[in-house]
């Protein structure tokens, strides 16, 4: 039996539509399930109290603080390194052997499973450098892990800046660095920030790499050298060891809400930033771009 062009078009369209809807449905199912199970646990005291009995009682104040600190360390270290590498790749190299080595390294880093980062972090930061299970060890490990994302998104953003911007800047007597700093960066900031936000999301959600490097202390951390347990690790522990399913879901719900807030908040900030700077229009200049 042969289908007419019209009906095959219809069938194709429905299949594609179904695929897209399935994705939405899966996401909705997960979010709704977690929120339904977790929201009843969420309360002011749950957010502000330190866990007791290994998390069976009390709140999750210390895992919240631990998550924030580990993520902050990771992003603060990875951002300058990653953006710097991206600038070097996009603006200073012309595709020689060094570029290839840097890019290959970054791509390889991206393909390593996070548990391997954890093992490396454990051996190098925790044992060799003697940092112990600590916020610092965990943050440094995550920094290496998110580096490829920041490099790749930043490099793409920088390459996306029209060549005419650079040309014009040079024609006004700017040096290369002035051009990068004053013209290329502002034009690429949206893409760079997107990469950083993605990385924050990954850091907040990471477990395997942190179990081995940040430890699983439930005490309120007092310094960057103190061990901590992030929310994701806390959730994992509560669920795996069947300590408190209710608290596990509460933690998971908070994680989801947090990531949602980070994404939406960053988008709003970015949009405001962009409308201040004027709409991004193509401004391709001379013929030799």
């Amino acid at each position: 039996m042969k289908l007419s062009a019209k009906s095959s078009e219809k069938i194709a369209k429905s299949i594609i539509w179904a695929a897209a809807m399935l994705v939405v449905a899966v996401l909705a199912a997960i979010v709704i399930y977690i929120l339904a199970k977790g929201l009843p646990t969420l309360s002011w005291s749950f957010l502000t109290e330190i866990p007791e009995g290994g998390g069976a009682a009390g709140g999750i104040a210390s895992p919240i603080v631990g998550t924030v600190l580990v993520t902050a360390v990771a992003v603060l270290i990875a951002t300058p390194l990653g953006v710097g590498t991206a600038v070097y790749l996009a603006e200073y190299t012309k595709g020689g052997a060094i570029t290839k080595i840097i890019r290959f390294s970054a791509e390889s880093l991206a393909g390593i499973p996070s548990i391997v980062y954890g093992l490396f972090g454990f051996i190098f930061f925790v044992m060799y450098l003697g940092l112990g299970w600590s916020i610092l060890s965990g943050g440094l490990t995550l920094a290496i892990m998110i580096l490829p994302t920041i490099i790749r998104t930043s490099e793409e953003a920088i390459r996306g800046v029209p060549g005419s911007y650079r040309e014009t800047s040079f024609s006004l007597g700017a040096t290369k660095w002035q051009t990068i700093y004053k013209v290329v960066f502002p034009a690429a900031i949206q893409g760079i920030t997107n990469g950083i936000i993605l990385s924050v999301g990954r850091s907040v959600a990471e477990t395997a790499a942190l179990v081995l490097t940040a430890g699983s202390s439930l005490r309120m951390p007092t310094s960057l050298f103190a061990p901590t347990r992030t929310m994701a690790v806390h959730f994992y522990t509560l669920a795996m060891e069947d300590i408190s399913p209710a608290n596990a879901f509460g933690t998971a719900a908070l994680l989801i809400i947090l990531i949602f807030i980070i994404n939406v908040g960053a988008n709003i900030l970015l949009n405001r930033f962009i409308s201040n700077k004027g709409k991004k229009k193509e401004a391709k200049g001379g013929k030799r771009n």
Partner: protein
Amino acid sequence: MSEISEKSRLRTENLNLYYGSRHALKDITMEIPSRAITAIIGPSGCGKSSLLRVFNRMNDLIPEARVEGNVYLDKISVYGEETDAVALRKKVGMVFQKPNPFPMSIFDNVVIGPRRHGVKHRDELESIAENCLRRVALWEDVKDNLRQSALNLPLGTQQQLCIARTLAIEPEVILMDESCSALDPESTMRVEELMTELAQSYTIMIVTHSMEQAARVSDMSAFMMIDDEKIGRLVEYGTTEQIFSTPKDKRTEDYITGRYG
């Protein structure tokens, strides 16, 4: 129109330009007078823009580009070993084909050059911005919107802004690479008036596809064409009046009268 006998600002001697193995410009020797407008005309692909970009070393940005021969800005050898391209570009400003303001405010666009070159005081920057915007006849239109994005301006106004931005670096020479080709006739007229006005204090070189424009605004005209080996050559150079009324070269005549292409 200003007198051609004035001191030359720009000069080339046996200039040759190569992009890798491609010979783009051959044996160009010309003197460009100061306080006048010199137009480079010729068919597409004859190297007009390449020649223009020799004067502010814009071709440096193309890795394989190589220049032979001499280019002088007064006594400075443009390609001399001592010459710093960044410093040179402060003296030789450029306005591009398409209006290309940066995605920032009108004010920040105008003062980006001076800021780069170390002017920090707010008052000083404000007076530079006002001055330059007045010179391009834009001040009255934008003085209340200096904080707005330059990208929201109409194209013609954007180009005026780009000229103001170039004036703000206090250049001696202004290169204009088909700066009206993206503009409507009315904006083109405004920019042409501006060119004529600026020519009283600057050395201006323009590349244009429009013969009418060359005839209207320029004092000197240079006609370029590619030879049989596809290398850009300067065919004829003289006062605009002479080039357009009594061209010496047959090829110039054909092009001027529209018999070419």
